[in-house]
């Protein structure tokens, strides 16, 4: 029984109670994915499962057997940062840094959702062929990721600066 974590196979834990979050942190020592509530209320544990953002605290690891999971460690490293990570530094999209990996993974998943045309609660026209990539959409779509330090403005700026530069997003503007 295995799953792919950041491109590498990993054996799924024997105890089915183990959440994907604890599996990553305690078994694989991938501590970049954070535990902020363990109850699906803060978003700090956000990872990408086959490219879709999910909460690893509400996922039993066994459920993700055969799936491909990307964590912050698979997004970029301290010496080779993803451009979104670089933008978080540039726009000061964090203070303590604890919610940050979740914010970044969530934003990557969000950008893909917008590219696929998934609407949000604040989308006026549900039928529109492309979704707008504006600050209000980012705020709504990122609302599952709490930040208590109050770096919200910087986070939204970093996301807008990164994905507004991509061709799909430009087309959606």
């Amino acid at each position, binding site marked *: 029984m295995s799953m792919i974590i950041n491109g590498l196979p990993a054996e799924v834990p024997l105890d089915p109670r183990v959440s994907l979050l604890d599996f990553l942190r305690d078994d694989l020592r991938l501590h970049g994915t954070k535990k*902020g509530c363990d109850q699906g*209320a803060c978003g700090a544990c956000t990872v990408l499962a086959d490219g879709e953002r999910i909460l690893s605290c509400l996922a039993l690891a066994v459920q993700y057997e055969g799936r491909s999971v990307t964590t912050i460690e698979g997004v970029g490293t301290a010496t080779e*940062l993803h451009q979104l*990570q670089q933008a978080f530094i540039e726009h000061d999209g964090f203070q*303590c*840094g604890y919610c940050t990996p979740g914010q970044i993974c969530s934003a990557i998943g969000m950008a893909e959702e917008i590219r696929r045309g998934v609407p949000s609660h604040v989308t006026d026209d549900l039928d529109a062929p492309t979704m707008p990539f504006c600050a209000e959409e980012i705020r709504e779509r990122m609302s599952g990721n709490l930040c*208590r330090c109050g770096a919200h403005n910087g986070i939204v700026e970093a996301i807008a600066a990164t994905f507004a530069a991509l061709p799909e997003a430009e087309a959606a503007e």
Partner: protein
Amino acid sequence: MSIAKDPKGLIQGAAQGLMAKAVALAPDAWVPGGVPDPLIGRQHGHVGRAVSRIDGPLKVSGTARFAAEFPMEHMVFAAILFSTIAKGRIVTLETARAQAAQGVVEVMTHRNAPRLSPPPVFMSNPKAAGGDNLPVMQDDRIHWNGQPVAVVLAETQEQANHAASLIEATYETEPAITAFDEARSHARPAEFMGEPLHDEKGKAETALSTSAVRIDATYRTPRHNHNAIELHAVTVAWQDGVLRLHDASQLVSHTAWSLGQIFGIPEDKVLVTSPYVGGGFGGKCMWQHHVLAAAAAKLCGRPVRLVLSREGVYRLVGGRSLTEQQVSLGADADGRLKALIHRGLTAKTPSNVMPEPFILASRSTYAAEAIELDVHSVELDLLANTFMRAPGESVGTFALESAMDELAEALALDPIELRIRNEPDVDPLSGLPFSSRRIVDAWRAGAEAFGWSRRSPTPGSRREGEWLVGMGCATGTYPYYRMPGGAARLTLTPRGASVGIAAHEMGMGTATAQVQVTAERLGLPIDAVDFHYGDSRLPGTVLAGGSQQTAAIGAAVIAAHRLLIKELFDIVGNDSPLAGIKPDDVACRDAGLCVRDDPERHETYASILARAGRASIEVTGEGPLPLELMHWSMHSHAAMFCEVKVNAITGEPRVTRFLGSFDCGRILNPKTAASQFRGGIIMGLGLALMEETQVDERNGRVMNPSLSEYHVPVHMDVPEIDVIWTDIPDPHTPMGARGIGEIGITGTAAAVANAIYNATGKRVRDLPITLDKLL
């Protein structure tokens, strides 16, 4: 000199007034800050530059390691069982099933826990870190609903959690006071930091009764929790007689000393490190989980990781207490305050020393002719409350500044003009001169940037579709603090310098700003300076609280720098271009020393060290006692502006624009400072609109111990927040800076409430302002 070694004695002495009076009257030059920090004059260097956080790459890549992320050999995982009664005693505690459950290593209860001394409660000693002084798992007594009664240690977290659920506890309950109204008649005068929370100037009641215009209203604020996103966690081991803690802490040295007291060992046998802290806000001090983890590690002889559940954080880490505040303002027809009365009630517990000091802001904000301020507090059988971002000012300014808005309306006067008319020349209570006070500049710049002139003074007069739109403003204020105990180690090598101080980086940007400051002070490039912090072995006893770290570190580094120059001169020798110069006549620049008036006479540190055959110089300097606080009235201010819309159908309040205009002395790093200001404001938006810790008054139990039921602002609640600042240095503080971590939360709730009044004509005096209050 004995008083100098005992800061508590100093504070008490000050309270008696003798020393305070002497310091107040002393010449400026005798007082710290009397001679301006030379850095204030350096305008084009590292200080004031928008440097990105030096720990950024580690944080955005998830490689910054937090307290729960230090695996240890043979480590066990802990889970806690909490009491379900408020007061009484444990009758039975059935642990056999838990003990027998798979993977369980040990179950610790009051029956087998190591014998411990009670925690030293805050302010009982300069290094005391305890939120309360209750014994930790030493007997069968229950003091609050949610008190830990058992700790399970197991090979995995799942096994520990499950086993904890198998423990059955029964209790004998005793009458507990858990309802605020029930305790009201037992209110007593409150003290804060050893001083009474009571001030009088003139006869305020008499002045009020003869005032032309009067406002008299009662404001209420509920309990709050810090809700840092990182769960409180500690990884603990006993290694060769040393208690080793990987902690999430805003007071490592205090924690080391306090745990030493509890376990009966010297403080240097306790090692606390805390390189990263996932948010603090006053909540990451020492609570029972530290003691329980260390005791459990001792009991089972293995390292222990204890991560509180989110519910666990609410059960054993205190938050802000509730307040009921009455504000009476009397003014003449021109709006000049004749009387300012601010008094009321808060709640604490029998085992702590923290009444929410909501009158602090009212001491220095307005030039009222007569002032009466008072806090009474009651004692409830609850978890001890504690400091939370701007204790006192955060909720006190809600009352004071709402009342000022009500007064402005009664006077038909612009609320900004009302505030400017009551601007004091000297501190209204102490009579001390202000070190620097440019709030009027902040008001004018803020009003201009926000477009205040577009506000209609008539409530309910602007509607956009379903939405009523309004603007409000309020004063925010927070004092400059510097606590005793600051000390820093400065190490100079041919490659650069490093600073070591037992301070903390919880996201405030401390490490980044202090690297900038130190680089500027030493004339080094930023990447030639390291900053070491978050380690109890480092010098200094520095609380990351009271927005005082910048000043405490700054003063300690100034002292260390002075020693460093002296040491350099001891080895400079006769072949140096600096030969024959006095230490007072040199400056640091271009990685070396030069003659201040003749910069061409220069020698690099590397050259000085090489000639003397030294690899490095290391000095440790101690900051002077913070006598400046008795010599000047030292406060930061903010002019807060808010625009809200309130749905006319559903009552939903939404903040659409916010601007904070700050007068906080010199800004060391505009990038991280802006984030601090915004962060405070956003917590203030939560305070205004949604935050409340719900304690069921029937049994004292927190009923919303989760981030889904305790609402903090989400992205969608946070508009773009403008922050601007005067950037006028305070001539009497290190670097000309005053702390900025807390002021953002002050004034914000009142600005929101005043905007809501302007939008709807509804004056809400009970926080949070939820939609049901606006229907």
